[in-house]
């Protein structure tokens, strides 16, 4: 397995390089540059700004300089947030996004899987219909509606939880985590229910039952493992997305994460920041996929690391 991890990690280097190249040249196709926002700037001022950020060099040279910097773990300065480098911005914001995202995924996985199993085992009963209704609500109502409504009710009306912000208290975590978890709970429960129903009909489950194994043991020992496979496949990439921050949730709840950089950097033409968050996200996705594949191997004997 160690060999497998090393091979996959090395294999991700060309992927990241291609990602960097595509992002770098594509973002330059967008009209404007980081300094086109102020219409009064004189040519001298513009020239000074472009020079300071190496934007006056030929594009190829800028690219190679960037790659050279990345190889030395220098992701450059942020053009719009000049008090910080790209590494600092990600370094300061990521732990917060990670914390919110991990909790949200954990809550979503536990509740989603439990609801899915309950729905599958009590098919076409009121339990199943309730689970279906929860899933429908979670998928149909967007988080930019759920967030503000939860904020108004629990924060402003009942005063149980803080409206927004980020502090040491765990109370700040509840609303954003639940808001972020809800759509995932919905999706995971549907996924789990479907695969559970399918698994319960397979031959090996029937064999287990025929051999006189109790219902509890059949489900926990045999069915669950197989039924989890599609959920695990979903969890990998979904976790990668969630822990890199949700711009909607972070803005609504004023959470100091990195989610907004994905959008703001592109709108502001903050080239180094666009590159930084893209490469960072790319690496997380690659890592999450690797983890997913390892877990799948543990769950499914048919998967091998060769």
């Amino acid at each position, binding site marked *: 397995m160690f060999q497998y991890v090393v091979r996959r990690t090395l294999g991700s280097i060309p992927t990241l390089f291609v990602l960097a190249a595509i992002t770098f040249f594509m973002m330059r196709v967008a009209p404007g540059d980081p300094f086109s926002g102020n219409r009064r700037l004189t040519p*001298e001022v513009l020239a000074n700004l472009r020079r300071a950020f190496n934007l006056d060099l030929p594009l190829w040279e800028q690219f190679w300089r960037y790659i050279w910097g990345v190889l030395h773990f220098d992701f450059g300065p942020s053009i719009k947030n000049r008090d910080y480098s790209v590494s600092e911005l990600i370094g300061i914001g990521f732990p917060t996004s990670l914390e919110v995202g991990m909790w949200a995924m954990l809550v979503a996985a536990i509740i989603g899987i439990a609801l899915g199993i309950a729905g599958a085992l009590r098919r076409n009963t009121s339990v199943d219909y309730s689970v279906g209704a929860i899933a429908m609500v979670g998928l149909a109502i967007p988080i930019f509606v759920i967030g503000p409504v939860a904020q108004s009710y629990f924060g402003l009306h009942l005063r149980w939880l803080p409206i927004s912000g980020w502090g040491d208290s765990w109370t700040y975590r509840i609303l954003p985590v639940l808001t972020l978890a809800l759509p995932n709970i919905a999706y995971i429960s549907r996924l789990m229910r479907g695969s559970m129903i399918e698994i319960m009909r397979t031959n090996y489950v029937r064999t287990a039952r025929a051999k006189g194994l109790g219902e509890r043991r059949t489900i926990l020992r045999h069915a669950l493992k197989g039924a989890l496979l599609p959920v695990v496949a979903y969890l990998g990439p979904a976790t990668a997305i969630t822990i890199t921050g949700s711009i909607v949730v972070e803005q609504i709840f004023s959470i100091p994460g990195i989610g907004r950089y994905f959008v703001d950097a592109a709108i502001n033409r903050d080239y180094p920041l666009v590159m930084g968050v893209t490469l960072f996200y790319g690496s997380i996705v690659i890592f999450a996929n690797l983890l997913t594949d390892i877990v799948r191997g543990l769950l499914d004997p048919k998967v091998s690391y060769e």
Partner: protein
Amino acid sequence: MMLANYSARMTISGMILAAIVALAQPAAAESVLTRGMGSTIGTLDPQINFLAYEGFILDDIYEGLVSPDPAGEPVPGAAETWDISDDGLTYTFHLRDGLKWSNGDPLVAQDFVNGVIRTLDPATASDKGYIFTSTISVVGAAAFNGGESTDPASVGVSAPDDKTVVIQLEKPAPYALYILNSFYFPPLHKPSFEAFGGDFIKPENIVTNGAYHLIENVPQSHVTLVKSPTYWGADSVKIDKVIYQITEDDNTAVKLFKAGEQDITYDIPSDQIEALTAEFGDQVHVTSSTETNYLSFNITKPPFDDIRVRQALAMALDRDAIINKVVKGGYVLNCGYVIPVPNYPQPQQADCAMPKDERVAKAQELYAEAGFGPDNVLALSIESSNNDAYKKIAETAAVMWKQTLGVEAKVNAQDRDSWLAAFNDGNWQVFNDNLVGDFAGPETFLAYMDPRAEAGYGWQSPEYEAAYDKAMSTEDQAERYKLLAEAERALLDTYLVIPLSSSPSRALVNSRVSGWVDNPAGWHSTKYMSVQ
């Protein structure tokens, strides 16, 4: 149950309060003000920062030679008095006695000179360089900023002694006092800059000269300032601590305001103004900002080189309906190019006050005269930013042109950078335009439209230039404003632009805060405020 619970809580909190009071006596309770900030802080570097909302913080922690009063008018700041030479080219500022930096170092005239030099230094790469090379033309500033001269002494800002700052201008700029404040003219504490480089504004390193001092800056979260004991006017500063909360979502800010957790919000969502006014009355503040909105024609491209086409299109618009019925949100209908400024006799575009029928008939007549009609339909595209208010303006104008004249107008809504890039390309036809003034005076707007400034409109007007030049050498404000109004009249009469509105600046201000005065430039120094 509710009641019992409530009184139990009261008793406990009462006991805690009593304990705190007993411990803290005789010190009075600390007064804290919380202010909203629409976006995270990109930079607090006083010579680099260029965003108005960061300017709030800079205005609290730094002080320029002059300082805006609660209404935004310049009053003595670090300088107690000043003299302006008769030709309007030399400004001599006399600093107050005993000025200090927050670390106790004496604040001297050279610190202000260093601030300007650093702003202009090409290595600093500051947006604000243009203030000294173009808004007020300081002698030698352009050459120094452009790298043609590397000698700081060649720039016309000097300190003949520790208490005197002399500024020399290439041409008169009678509005210069509006520029020499904390936002454009902050001093530089050179020892800390030399020791820490770009990190000199980090909370652990920063040295300031304003009424407040920065103690905390958490990106995306908050910035905390405390009252500075070394500030010359510290005795009259009433609020001990200011917390700037970063609330990017205006709806969240409104909830914080309602809960009493944010005293002053950064903005108000435009669709909530009415409801909030009904609920909070005069705690809702909506006033004109220094942003003017207008549609521009590319007169270098036919058929917009024909004034009849431009006039017809202007007259086909019901500007009152666009601004007051569609855009709303505090936008103020404005038929002049310059934002509404007190004492400025603002000219209006002629058709703006015409009765509707007459205006429409005239528009159709001019449209036909220019050779357009059902057989020869005018097709055009409007370049617009994708900001909500802008999109509404462009889309409504397109509909009105279609209804009144049969014009086929297409709206290109795009992000801000693409929109401005379209303008710079010069291939646009109608541009959904705006301009944010450097200060709240007609000079800044008319300097931008000066044909010689070549902002990209490609228009000519000797009349405008003559009136503008004469105004710039007139010290008396009333006389100068009259001349500037003549220049603006020339601009409006060519129908190069269709002025529409001035953008609002909006805020919820808790009634426990006093000292807040609405003003277009958006100056709201915490040092003038107090809380109950």
